[in-house]
Protein backbone atom coordinates (compact mmCIF):
# COMPACT_ATOMS: atom_id res chain seq x y z
CA UNK A 1 0.00 0.00 0.00
CA UNK A 2 1.15 3.42 -0.95
CA UNK A 3 0.51 5.68 2.01
CA UNK A 4 1.34 8.71 -0.08
CA UNK A 5 -1.54 7.96 -2.46
CA UNK A 6 -3.91 8.76 0.39
CA UNK A 7 -1.96 11.43 2.17
CA UNK A 8 -1.20 13.72 -0.73
CA UNK A 9 0.80 16.84 0.09
CA UNK A 10 -2.27 18.98 -0.53
CA UNK A 11 -4.17 17.09 2.18
CA UNK A 12 -1.37 17.35 4.69
CA UNK A 13 -1.03 21.08 3.92
CA UNK A 14 -4.72 21.73 4.53
CA UNK A 15 -4.50 19.62 7.68
CA UNK A 16 -1.63 21.62 9.08
CA UNK A 17 -2.92 25.01 7.89
CA UNK A 18 -6.68 24.76 7.66
CA UNK A 19 -8.49 27.54 5.79
CA UNK A 20 -11.31 29.38 7.43
CA UNK A 21 -11.16 27.55 10.72
CA UNK A 22 -12.82 29.03 13.80
CA UNK A 23 -16.45 29.85 14.53
CA UNK A 24 -17.55 33.27 13.37
CA UNK A 25 -20.55 35.56 13.55
CA UNK A 26 -22.83 36.33 11.88
CA UNK A 27 -24.26 33.05 10.61
CA UNK A 28 -27.63 31.81 9.44
CA UNK A 29 -27.39 28.21 10.59
CA UNK A 30 -25.06 25.86 12.38
CA UNK A 31 -24.75 22.10 12.07
CA UNK A 32 -23.06 19.61 14.38
CA UNK A 33 -22.02 16.34 12.77
CA UNK A 34 -20.29 13.38 14.29
CA UNK A 35 -18.74 10.22 12.96
CA UNK A 36 -20.16 7.62 15.34
CA UNK A 37 -17.41 5.06 14.83
CA UNK A 38 -14.52 7.31 15.85
CA UNK A 39 -16.09 10.24 17.62
CA UNK A 40 -14.77 12.81 15.18
CA UNK A 41 -16.95 15.87 15.11
CA UNK A 42 -17.42 19.17 13.37
CA UNK A 43 -19.51 22.22 14.12
CA UNK A 44 -20.02 24.26 10.99
CA UNK A 45 -21.76 27.59 10.38
CA UNK A 46 -22.92 29.08 7.11
CA UNK A 47 -23.74 32.63 6.28
CA UNK A 48 -25.72 33.00 3.09
CA UNK A 49 -26.17 36.21 1.21
CA UNK A 50 -28.34 36.73 -1.80
CA UNK A 51 -28.25 33.06 -2.78
CA UNK A 52 -24.52 32.91 -2.27
CA UNK A 53 -22.36 31.32 0.40
CA UNK A 54 -20.93 34.39 2.11
CA UNK A 55 -18.98 32.61 4.82
CA UNK A 56 -18.28 29.22 6.32
CA UNK A 57 -16.72 28.89 9.73
CA UNK A 58 -16.10 25.69 11.65
CA UNK A 59 -14.53 24.05 14.65
CA UNK A 60 -13.98 20.40 15.36
CA UNK A 61 -11.71 17.54 16.09
CA UNK A 62 -10.78 14.80 13.75
CA UNK A 63 -8.26 13.09 11.59
CA UNK A 64 -6.24 14.70 8.83
CA UNK A 65 -8.77 13.64 6.22
CA UNK A 66 -11.80 15.17 7.88
CA UNK A 67 -9.95 18.35 8.81
CA UNK A 68 -8.41 18.82 5.40
CA UNK A 69 -11.60 18.13 3.50
CA UNK A 70 -13.48 20.74 5.52
CA UNK A 71 -10.73 23.21 4.77
CA UNK A 72 -10.97 22.41 1.05
CA UNK A 73 -14.73 22.76 1.31
CA UNK A 74 -14.45 26.38 2.38
CA UNK A 75 -12.19 27.15 -0.59
CA UNK A 76 -14.60 25.49 -2.97
CA UNK A 77 -17.90 26.97 -1.89
CA UNK A 78 -17.38 30.36 -0.27
CA UNK A 79 -18.30 33.04 -2.76
CA UNK A 80 -20.31 30.67 -4.92
CA UNK A 81 -24.04 30.35 -5.23
CA UNK A 82 -25.73 27.64 -3.19
CA UNK A 83 -26.55 25.92 -6.43
CA UNK A 84 -22.93 25.90 -7.55
CA UNK A 85 -21.85 24.73 -4.12
CA UNK A 86 -24.24 21.81 -4.27
CA UNK A 87 -23.00 20.84 -7.71
CA UNK A 88 -19.46 20.82 -6.34
CA UNK A 89 -20.60 18.81 -3.34
CA UNK A 90 -22.28 16.24 -5.57
CA UNK A 91 -19.06 15.86 -7.53
CA UNK A 92 -17.06 15.45 -4.33
CA UNK A 93 -19.51 12.90 -2.90
CA UNK A 94 -19.47 10.98 -6.17
CA UNK A 95 -15.69 10.95 -6.13
CA UNK A 96 -15.55 9.76 -2.52
CA UNK A 97 -18.10 6.99 -3.00
CA UNK A 98 -16.51 5.87 -6.25
CA UNK A 99 -14.11 3.38 -4.69
CA UNK A 100 -11.30 4.89 -6.70
CA UNK A 101 -13.13 4.30 -9.99
CA UNK A 102 -14.26 7.89 -10.54
CA UNK A 103 -12.01 10.30 -12.42
CA UNK A 104 -12.15 13.67 -10.62
CA UNK A 105 -12.61 16.87 -12.57
CA UNK A 106 -9.99 19.33 -11.41
CA UNK A 107 -11.92 22.29 -12.81
CA UNK A 108 -14.76 21.52 -10.43
CA UNK A 109 -12.94 20.09 -7.43
CA UNK A 110 -9.61 21.94 -7.47
CA UNK A 111 -7.69 20.82 -4.33
CA UNK A 112 -10.50 18.30 -3.76
CA UNK A 113 -8.99 16.03 -6.42
CA UNK A 114 -6.33 15.16 -3.87
CA UNK A 115 -8.93 13.05 -2.09
CA UNK A 116 -9.18 10.59 -4.97
CA UNK A 117 -6.83 8.24 -3.13
CA UNK A 118 -8.99 8.32 0.00
CA UNK A 119 -11.91 6.94 -1.99
CA UNK A 120 -10.11 3.61 -2.13
CA UNK A 121 -10.45 3.26 1.64
CA UNK A 122 -14.16 2.93 2.40
CA UNK A 123 -13.64 3.35 6.14
CA UNK A 124 -12.21 6.82 5.54
CA UNK A 125 -14.88 8.08 3.18
CA UNK A 126 -17.03 9.15 6.10
CA UNK A 127 -14.12 11.22 7.38
CA UNK A 128 -13.80 13.01 4.07
CA UNK A 129 -17.53 13.74 3.96
CA UNK A 130 -18.03 14.88 7.56
CA UNK A 131 -17.64 18.60 6.88
CA UNK A 132 -19.67 18.37 3.70
CA UNK A 133 -22.57 16.75 5.50
CA UNK A 134 -22.46 19.58 8.01
CA UNK A 135 -22.47 22.10 5.17
CA UNK A 136 -25.46 20.44 3.52
CA UNK A 137 -27.33 20.29 6.77
CA UNK A 138 -26.56 23.88 7.70
CA UNK A 139 -27.60 25.21 4.31
CA UNK A 140 -30.86 23.37 4.48
CA UNK A 141 -31.53 24.78 7.98
CA UNK A 142 -30.59 28.21 6.74
CA UNK A 143 -33.10 27.76 3.96
CA UNK A 144 -35.68 26.74 6.54
CA UNK A 145 -34.75 29.76 8.65
CA UNK A 146 -35.73 31.90 5.73
CA UNK A 147 -32.16 32.85 4.85
CA UNK A 148 -31.87 35.83 7.19
CA UNK A 149 -29.50 38.29 5.59
Amino acid at each position, binding site marked *: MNLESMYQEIILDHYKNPHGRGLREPFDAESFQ*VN*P*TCGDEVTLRVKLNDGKVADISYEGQGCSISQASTSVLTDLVVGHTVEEAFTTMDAFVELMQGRGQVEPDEDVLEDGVAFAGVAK*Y*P*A*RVKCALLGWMAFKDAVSSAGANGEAS
Partner: protein
Amino acid sequence: MTTTAAPLDVAALRADFPILSRTVRDGKPLVYLDSGATSQRPTQVLDAERRFLETSNAPVHRGAYQLAEEATDAYEYARARTGEFVGASPQELVFTKNATEGVNLVAYAMSNAATAGPEAERFVVGPGDEIVVTEMEHHANLVPWQQVCQRTGATLRWLGLTEDGRLDLSDLDEVVNERTKVVAFVHQSNVLGTVNPVEPIVRRARQVGALTVLDACQSVPHGPVDFRELGVDFAVFAPHKMLAPSGIGVLYGRRELLEAMPPFLTGGSMIELVTMERTTFAPPPQRFEAGSPMTSQAVGLGAAVDYLTSVGMDRVAAHEHLLLEAALPGLAGIPGVRILGPADTTDRGATVAFAIDGVHPHDAGQVLDSLGIAVRVGHHCAWPLHRACHVPASIRASFYLYNDLSEVDALVDGVREAQRFFGVA
Protein backbone atom coordinates in the same frame (compact mmCIF):
# COMPACT_ATOMS: atom_id res chain seq x y z
CA MET B 1 -47.66 -20.08 -10.79
CA THR B 2 -45.41 -20.20 -13.83
CA THR B 3 -45.50 -23.67 -15.34
CA THR B 4 -43.67 -22.85 -18.52
CA ALA B 5 -40.22 -22.61 -16.90
CA ALA B 6 -37.82 -25.39 -17.81
CA PRO B 7 -38.06 -28.20 -15.23
CA LEU B 8 -35.34 -28.57 -12.63
CA ASP B 9 -32.64 -31.16 -13.02
CA VAL B 10 -33.15 -32.37 -9.47
CA ALA B 11 -30.54 -35.11 -9.64
CA ALA B 12 -27.83 -32.61 -10.58
CA LEU B 13 -29.01 -30.18 -7.98
CA ARG B 14 -29.03 -32.80 -5.21
CA ALA B 15 -25.32 -33.32 -5.78
CA ASP B 16 -24.82 -29.83 -4.33
CA PHE B 17 -26.26 -30.95 -0.99
CA PRO B 18 -23.86 -33.36 0.72
CA ILE B 19 -26.29 -34.28 3.49
CA LEU B 20 -28.87 -35.61 1.05
CA SER B 21 -26.69 -38.54 0.15
CA ARG B 22 -26.37 -39.82 3.69
CA THR B 23 -28.32 -42.73 5.08
CA VAL B 24 -30.17 -43.01 8.37
CA ARG B 25 -31.56 -45.80 10.55
CA ASP B 26 -29.51 -48.75 9.39
CA GLY B 27 -28.76 -47.71 5.85
CA LYS B 28 -32.00 -46.13 4.66
CA PRO B 29 -31.46 -43.31 2.18
CA LEU B 30 -32.49 -40.03 3.74
CA VAL B 31 -35.78 -38.62 2.46
CA TYR B 32 -35.75 -35.12 3.87
CA LEU B 33 -39.26 -33.67 3.96
CA ASP B 34 -38.81 -31.12 6.72
CA SER B 35 -37.54 -28.12 4.79
CA GLY B 36 -40.45 -26.12 6.18
CA ALA B 37 -38.64 -26.31 9.51
CA THR B 38 -35.15 -25.82 8.13
CA SER B 39 -33.60 -26.40 4.72
CA GLN B 40 -30.32 -28.06 3.88
CA ARG B 41 -27.33 -26.07 2.59
CA PRO B 42 -25.57 -26.50 -0.73
CA THR B 43 -21.80 -26.69 -0.98
CA GLN B 44 -21.83 -23.26 -2.62
CA VAL B 45 -23.18 -21.71 0.57
CA LEU B 46 -20.85 -23.67 2.84
CA ASP B 47 -17.88 -22.71 0.68
CA ALA B 48 -18.77 -19.04 0.59
CA GLU B 49 -18.97 -18.85 4.36
CA ARG B 50 -15.74 -20.75 4.82
CA ARG B 51 -13.88 -18.71 2.24
CA PHE B 52 -14.94 -15.57 4.04
CA LEU B 53 -13.76 -16.92 7.39
CA GLU B 54 -10.44 -18.05 6.00
CA THR B 55 -9.67 -14.82 4.22
CA SER B 56 -11.67 -11.76 5.29
CA ASN B 57 -13.08 -12.32 8.74
CA ALA B 58 -13.02 -9.11 10.78
CA PRO B 59 -15.36 -6.78 12.63
CA VAL B 60 -17.89 -5.14 10.35
CA HIS B 61 -18.46 -1.36 10.29
CA ARG B 62 -15.90 -0.87 13.01
CA GLY B 63 -12.43 -1.44 11.62
CA ALA B 64 -10.42 0.66 9.19
CA TYR B 65 -7.85 -1.91 8.05
CA GLN B 66 -7.99 -4.04 4.95
CA LEU B 67 -9.65 -7.13 6.46
CA ALA B 68 -12.30 -4.96 8.04
CA GLU B 69 -12.98 -3.27 4.72
CA GLU B 70 -13.38 -6.63 3.04
CA ALA B 71 -15.64 -7.93 5.79
CA THR B 72 -17.82 -4.83 5.70
CA ASP B 73 -18.08 -5.05 1.93
CA ALA B 74 -19.05 -8.72 2.06
CA TYR B 75 -21.69 -8.05 4.71
CA GLU B 76 -23.21 -5.13 2.84
CA TYR B 77 -23.04 -6.93 -0.49
CA ALA B 78 -25.14 -9.67 1.09
CA ARG B 79 -27.66 -7.09 2.24
CA ALA B 80 -27.86 -5.55 -1.21
CA ARG B 81 -28.25 -8.93 -2.95
CA THR B 82 -30.91 -10.01 -0.51
CA GLY B 83 -32.70 -6.72 -1.07
CA GLU B 84 -32.79 -7.25 -4.82
CA PHE B 85 -34.13 -10.74 -4.19
CA VAL B 86 -37.20 -9.51 -2.32
CA GLY B 87 -37.75 -6.09 -3.87
CA ALA B 88 -36.25 -3.90 -1.18
CA SER B 89 -33.50 -1.34 -0.98
CA PRO B 90 -30.57 -2.23 1.29
CA GLN B 91 -31.56 0.39 3.88
CA GLU B 92 -34.88 -1.38 4.24
CA LEU B 93 -33.39 -4.70 5.35
CA VAL B 94 -32.38 -5.39 8.94
CA PHE B 95 -30.43 -8.51 9.81
CA THR B 96 -31.78 -10.19 12.91
CA LYS B 97 -30.95 -13.57 14.43
CA ASN B 98 -34.07 -15.21 13.07
CA ALA B 99 -37.45 -14.28 11.73
CA THR B 100 -38.85 -14.44 15.24
CA GLU B 101 -36.58 -11.61 16.36
CA GLY B 102 -37.82 -9.59 13.39
CA VAL B 103 -41.43 -9.78 14.57
CA ASN B 104 -40.36 -9.03 18.12
CA LEU B 105 -38.36 -6.03 16.92
CA VAL B 106 -41.46 -4.44 15.44
CA ALA B 107 -43.60 -5.47 18.40
CA TYR B 108 -41.17 -4.04 20.94
CA ALA B 109 -40.64 -0.88 18.93
CA MET B 110 -44.36 -0.35 19.35
CA SER B 111 -44.42 -0.88 23.07
CA ASN B 112 -41.25 1.19 23.47
CA ALA B 113 -42.75 4.00 21.43
CA ALA B 114 -44.62 5.38 24.44
CA THR B 115 -41.37 6.51 26.07
CA ALA B 116 -39.35 7.16 22.93
CA GLY B 117 -40.22 10.73 22.08
CA PRO B 118 -42.45 12.48 19.54
CA GLU B 119 -40.98 10.91 16.40
CA ALA B 120 -42.16 7.51 17.56
CA GLU B 121 -45.68 8.60 18.30
CA ARG B 122 -47.24 6.89 15.29
CA PHE B 123 -46.13 3.53 16.71
CA VAL B 124 -47.70 3.95 20.15
CA VAL B 125 -50.41 1.43 21.05
CA GLY B 126 -52.47 1.33 24.19
CA PRO B 127 -55.90 0.61 25.66
CA GLY B 128 -58.60 0.89 23.02
CA ASP B 129 -56.21 0.05 20.21
CA GLU B 130 -56.41 -3.30 18.46
CA ILE B 131 -53.86 -5.61 16.90
CA VAL B 132 -55.09 -8.13 14.36
CA VAL B 133 -53.53 -11.50 13.57
CA THR B 134 -54.96 -14.67 12.07
CA GLU B 135 -55.77 -18.06 13.48
CA MET B 136 -53.22 -19.69 11.16
CA GLU B 137 -50.18 -17.84 12.50
CA HIS B 138 -46.98 -19.50 13.53
CA HIS B 139 -46.37 -18.75 17.23
CA ALA B 140 -43.65 -16.35 16.05
CA ASN B 141 -46.31 -14.04 14.61
CA LEU B 142 -48.80 -14.52 17.42
CA VAL B 143 -47.11 -14.57 20.82
CA PRO B 144 -45.14 -11.32 20.33
CA TRP B 145 -48.43 -9.54 19.60
CA GLN B 146 -50.13 -11.08 22.62
CA GLN B 147 -47.21 -9.73 24.61
CA VAL B 148 -47.52 -6.22 23.17
CA CYS B 149 -51.15 -6.30 24.24
CA GLN B 150 -50.15 -7.47 27.69
CA ARG B 151 -47.57 -4.70 27.99
CA THR B 152 -49.69 -1.89 26.62
CA GLY B 153 -53.32 -2.77 27.28
CA ALA B 154 -54.20 -3.06 23.59
CA THR B 155 -56.59 -5.81 22.45
CA LEU B 156 -55.73 -8.76 20.22
CA ARG B 157 -58.23 -9.79 17.55
CA TRP B 158 -57.99 -12.28 14.75
CA LEU B 159 -59.27 -13.47 11.42
CA GLY B 160 -60.51 -17.05 11.49
CA LEU B 161 -60.35 -19.93 9.02
CA THR B 162 -62.81 -21.32 6.53
CA GLU B 163 -63.75 -24.98 6.51
CA ASP B 164 -61.31 -25.68 3.68
CA GLY B 165 -58.35 -24.12 5.46
CA ARG B 166 -58.25 -20.67 3.96
CA LEU B 167 -58.38 -17.32 5.65
CA ASP B 168 -61.95 -16.24 6.36
CA LEU B 169 -62.06 -12.70 5.05
CA SER B 170 -65.85 -12.35 5.33
CA ASP B 171 -65.50 -10.19 8.43
CA LEU B 172 -62.31 -8.42 7.36
CA ASP B 173 -63.98 -5.02 7.44
CA GLU B 174 -65.27 -5.61 10.93
CA VAL B 175 -62.11 -7.15 12.43
CA VAL B 176 -59.81 -4.59 10.82
CA ASN B 177 -61.35 -1.26 11.78
CA GLU B 178 -60.55 2.26 12.91
CA ARG B 179 -59.10 0.96 16.16
CA THR B 180 -56.66 -1.36 14.41
CA LYS B 181 -53.00 -0.38 14.66
CA VAL B 182 -51.35 -3.46 13.19
CA VAL B 183 -52.42 -6.34 10.96
CA ALA B 184 -49.89 -9.18 11.16
CA PHE B 185 -50.48 -12.17 8.94
CA VAL B 186 -48.73 -15.05 7.32
CA HIS B 187 -48.08 -15.13 3.58
CA GLN B 188 -48.06 -18.91 3.29
CA SER B 189 -49.13 -21.09 6.20
CA ASN B 190 -46.38 -23.38 7.47
CA VAL B 191 -49.02 -26.06 8.16
CA LEU B 192 -51.85 -25.72 5.66
CA GLY B 193 -49.76 -24.57 2.74
CA THR B 194 -52.40 -21.91 2.10
CA VAL B 195 -51.12 -18.83 0.30
CA ASN B 196 -53.04 -15.86 1.62
CA PRO B 197 -54.24 -12.97 -0.54
CA VAL B 198 -52.13 -10.02 0.51
CA GLU B 199 -53.86 -7.38 -1.54
CA PRO B 200 -57.28 -7.14 0.15
CA ILE B 201 -55.72 -7.20 3.60
CA VAL B 202 -53.21 -4.47 2.79
CA ARG B 203 -55.95 -2.43 1.16
CA ARG B 204 -58.19 -2.64 4.19
CA ALA B 205 -55.30 -1.95 6.58
CA ARG B 206 -54.40 1.18 4.64
CA GLN B 207 -58.01 2.35 4.68
CA VAL B 208 -57.95 2.37 8.46
CA GLY B 209 -54.32 3.50 8.81
CA ALA B 210 -53.04 0.24 10.28
CA LEU B 211 -49.52 -1.07 9.69
CA THR B 212 -49.12 -4.45 7.99
CA VAL B 213 -46.60 -7.10 9.01
CA LEU B 214 -46.18 -10.02 6.65
CA ASP B 215 -44.71 -13.31 7.85
CA ALA B 216 -43.01 -14.40 4.63
CA CYS B 217 -41.02 -17.27 6.15
CA GLN B 218 -42.74 -19.84 3.97
CA SER B 219 -43.12 -17.78 0.81
CA VAL B 220 -39.73 -16.18 0.16
CA PRO B 221 -37.90 -19.54 -0.04
CA HIS B 222 -40.38 -21.05 -2.45
CA GLY B 223 -41.16 -18.54 -5.17
CA PRO B 224 -40.71 -14.98 -6.40
CA VAL B 225 -41.70 -12.44 -3.73
CA ASP B 226 -41.51 -8.66 -4.02
CA PHE B 227 -42.30 -6.79 -0.82
CA ARG B 228 -42.57 -3.41 -2.48
CA GLU B 229 -45.06 -4.79 -4.96
CA LEU B 230 -47.04 -6.48 -2.18
CA GLY B 231 -47.24 -3.11 -0.47
CA VAL B 232 -46.73 -4.37 3.07
CA ASP B 233 -45.10 -2.16 5.68
CA PHE B 234 -42.98 -4.86 7.31
CA ALA B 235 -42.07 -8.43 6.47
CA VAL B 236 -39.86 -11.11 7.95
CA PHE B 237 -38.26 -14.22 6.54
CA ALA B 238 -35.88 -16.93 7.66
CA PRO B 239 -32.69 -17.53 5.65
CA HIS B 240 -32.16 -21.00 7.16
CA LYS B 241 -35.33 -22.06 5.34
CA MET B 242 -33.85 -20.96 2.02
CA LEU B 243 -30.49 -22.75 1.88
CA ALA B 244 -28.67 -20.15 4.00
CA PRO B 245 -27.05 -20.49 7.42
CA SER B 246 -28.90 -20.54 10.70
CA GLY B 247 -28.34 -17.65 13.07
CA ILE B 248 -29.61 -14.94 10.73
CA GLY B 249 -33.06 -13.58 9.97
CA VAL B 250 -34.30 -10.71 7.86
CA LEU B 251 -36.72 -7.93 8.67
CA TYR B 252 -37.98 -5.71 5.89
CA GLY B 253 -39.42 -2.33 6.80
CA ARG B 254 -40.47 0.53 4.57
CA ARG B 255 -37.81 3.16 4.75
CA GLU B 256 -39.82 5.98 6.26
CA LEU B 257 -41.13 3.64 8.93
CA LEU B 258 -37.73 2.29 9.94
CA GLU B 259 -36.51 5.88 10.05
CA ALA B 260 -39.18 6.89 12.53
CA MET B 261 -39.06 3.74 14.63
CA PRO B 262 -37.37 3.65 18.03
CA PRO B 263 -34.60 1.12 18.56
CA PHE B 264 -35.12 -2.31 20.05
CA LEU B 265 -31.84 -3.97 21.08
CA THR B 266 -29.33 -1.34 22.09
CA GLY B 267 -25.55 -1.36 22.46
CA GLY B 268 -22.59 -1.01 20.13
CA SER B 269 -22.80 -0.14 16.41
CA MET B 270 -26.31 1.30 16.56
CA ILE B 271 -25.50 4.59 18.23
CA GLU B 272 -24.80 8.09 17.06
CA LEU B 273 -23.65 9.83 20.26
CA VAL B 274 -23.23 8.25 23.69
CA THR B 275 -22.79 9.95 27.04
CA MET B 276 -23.43 8.45 30.44
CA GLU B 277 -26.67 10.41 30.56
CA ARG B 278 -28.05 9.94 27.11
CA THR B 279 -27.69 8.20 23.76
CA THR B 280 -28.85 9.06 20.28
CA PHE B 281 -29.14 6.48 17.54
CA ALA B 282 -27.85 5.79 14.07
CA PRO B 283 -30.11 5.74 11.02
CA PRO B 284 -31.58 2.39 9.88
CA PRO B 285 -30.64 -0.34 9.26
CA GLN B 286 -27.73 0.13 11.74
CA ARG B 287 -30.12 1.41 14.41
CA PHE B 288 -31.60 -2.07 14.61
CA GLU B 289 -28.39 -4.08 14.51
CA ALA B 290 -26.90 -3.76 17.97
CA GLY B 291 -23.71 -5.62 18.76
CA SER B 292 -21.46 -7.74 16.60
CA PRO B 293 -23.48 -8.93 13.63
CA MET B 294 -23.83 -12.40 12.11
CA THR B 295 -21.15 -11.65 9.57
CA SER B 296 -20.32 -14.97 7.95
CA GLN B 297 -23.98 -15.91 8.12
CA ALA B 298 -24.86 -12.87 6.03
CA VAL B 299 -22.21 -13.91 3.54
CA GLY B 300 -23.82 -17.35 3.43
CA LEU B 301 -27.20 -15.74 2.86
CA GLY B 302 -25.78 -13.81 -0.08
CA ALA B 303 -24.50 -17.06 -1.55
CA ALA B 304 -27.89 -18.73 -1.02
CA VAL B 305 -29.59 -15.87 -2.82
CA ASP B 306 -27.11 -16.26 -5.67
CA TYR B 307 -27.80 -19.99 -5.77
CA LEU B 308 -31.58 -19.62 -5.79
CA THR B 309 -31.39 -16.83 -8.34
CA SER B 310 -29.32 -18.94 -10.68
CA VAL B 311 -31.82 -21.78 -10.35
CA GLY B 312 -34.66 -19.30 -10.82
CA MET B 313 -37.46 -18.81 -8.32
CA ASP B 314 -40.09 -19.39 -11.01
CA ARG B 315 -38.63 -22.81 -11.62
CA VAL B 316 -38.42 -23.55 -7.91
CA ALA B 317 -42.10 -22.69 -7.59
CA ALA B 318 -43.05 -24.75 -10.63
CA HIS B 319 -41.09 -27.74 -9.40
CA GLU B 320 -42.68 -27.63 -5.97
CA HIS B 321 -46.08 -27.31 -7.55
CA LEU B 322 -45.39 -30.51 -9.44
CA LEU B 323 -44.56 -32.26 -6.18
CA LEU B 324 -47.70 -30.88 -4.58
CA GLU B 325 -49.82 -32.14 -7.46
CA ALA B 326 -48.53 -35.62 -6.73
CA ALA B 327 -48.47 -35.48 -2.94
CA LEU B 328 -51.92 -34.04 -2.36
CA PRO B 329 -53.94 -36.70 -4.22
CA GLY B 330 -51.44 -39.36 -3.19
CA LEU B 331 -52.06 -38.75 0.49
CA ALA B 332 -55.72 -37.80 0.21
CA GLY B 333 -56.31 -41.03 -1.66
CA ILE B 334 -55.35 -43.16 1.32
CA PRO B 335 -58.42 -44.15 3.33
CA GLY B 336 -58.20 -42.78 6.86
CA VAL B 337 -55.91 -39.90 5.91
CA ARG B 338 -57.25 -36.39 6.41
CA ILE B 339 -55.47 -33.44 4.83
CA LEU B 340 -55.32 -30.19 6.79
CA GLY B 341 -55.67 -27.22 4.50
CA PRO B 342 -56.94 -26.75 0.96
CA ALA B 343 -57.79 -29.91 -0.96
CA ASP B 344 -56.95 -28.26 -4.28
CA THR B 345 -53.60 -27.00 -5.43
CA THR B 346 -54.46 -23.38 -6.21
CA ASP B 347 -52.80 -20.76 -4.03
CA ARG B 348 -51.15 -23.49 -2.08
CA GLY B 349 -47.52 -24.29 -1.40
CA ALA B 350 -45.90 -27.71 -1.28
CA THR B 351 -46.45 -28.23 2.42
CA VAL B 352 -48.91 -30.97 3.29
CA ALA B 353 -50.04 -31.59 6.85
CA PHE B 354 -52.33 -34.49 7.57
CA ALA B 355 -53.74 -36.76 10.24
CA ILE B 356 -54.19 -40.53 10.11
CA ASP B 357 -57.22 -42.00 11.82
CA GLY B 358 -56.12 -44.23 14.66
CA VAL B 359 -52.42 -43.47 14.38
CA HIS B 360 -51.01 -40.69 16.50
CA PRO B 361 -48.70 -38.36 14.54
CA HIS B 362 -45.77 -39.20 16.79
CA ASP B 363 -46.23 -42.88 16.07
CA ALA B 364 -46.65 -42.30 12.36
CA GLY B 365 -43.53 -40.16 12.37
CA GLN B 366 -41.63 -42.96 14.06
CA VAL B 367 -42.62 -45.42 11.36
CA LEU B 368 -41.64 -42.94 8.65
CA ASP B 369 -38.34 -42.28 10.43
CA SER B 370 -37.64 -46.02 10.47
CA LEU B 371 -37.98 -45.86 6.69
CA GLY B 372 -35.56 -42.91 6.43
CA ILE B 373 -38.31 -40.35 5.90
CA ALA B 374 -37.91 -37.16 7.93
CA VAL B 375 -41.22 -35.39 8.51
CA ARG B 376 -42.33 -33.12 11.30
CA VAL B 377 -44.92 -34.26 13.82
CA GLY B 378 -46.68 -32.13 16.40
CA HIS B 379 -48.34 -28.74 16.11
CA HIS B 380 -45.49 -27.15 14.14
CA CYS B 381 -45.58 -24.01 16.30
CA ALA B 382 -49.18 -23.40 15.23
CA TRP B 383 -51.17 -24.73 18.12
CA PRO B 384 -54.26 -22.52 17.72
CA LEU B 385 -54.44 -23.54 14.07
CA HIS B 386 -54.53 -27.19 15.05
CA ARG B 387 -57.25 -26.49 17.58
CA ALA B 388 -59.22 -24.78 14.83
CA CYS B 389 -58.73 -27.91 12.69
CA HIS B 390 -59.92 -30.08 15.60
CA VAL B 391 -56.75 -32.14 15.80
CA PRO B 392 -54.22 -32.05 18.60
CA ALA B 393 -51.32 -32.51 16.21
CA SER B 394 -50.48 -33.51 12.66
CA ILE B 395 -47.81 -34.95 10.41
CA ARG B 396 -46.26 -32.45 8.04
CA ALA B 397 -44.28 -33.10 4.88
CA SER B 398 -42.73 -29.97 3.39
CA PHE B 399 -41.00 -30.13 0.05
CA TYR B 400 -38.24 -28.06 -1.50
CA LEU B 401 -36.34 -27.74 -4.73
CA TYR B 402 -34.16 -30.78 -3.98
CA ASN B 403 -37.05 -33.19 -3.45
CA ASP B 404 -38.35 -35.36 -6.27
CA LEU B 405 -41.37 -37.44 -7.15
CA SER B 406 -39.82 -40.65 -5.85
CA GLU B 407 -39.79 -39.05 -2.43
CA VAL B 408 -43.49 -38.28 -2.71
CA ASP B 409 -44.03 -41.98 -3.45
CA ALA B 410 -41.88 -42.97 -0.50
CA LEU B 411 -44.02 -40.79 1.75
CA VAL B 412 -47.28 -42.22 0.50
CA ASP B 413 -45.97 -45.78 0.89
CA GLY B 414 -44.68 -44.91 4.36
CA VAL B 415 -48.06 -43.65 5.49
CA ARG B 416 -49.62 -46.93 4.38
CA GLU B 417 -46.93 -48.79 6.27
CA ALA B 418 -47.73 -46.82 9.42
CA GLN B 419 -51.37 -47.77 9.08
CA ARG B 420 -50.43 -51.39 8.62
CA PHE B 421 -48.07 -51.37 11.59
CA PHE B 422 -50.70 -49.92 13.90
CA GLY B 423 -53.38 -52.18 12.50
CA VAL B 424 -55.69 -49.54 11.07
CA ALA B 425 -55.49 -50.63 7.42
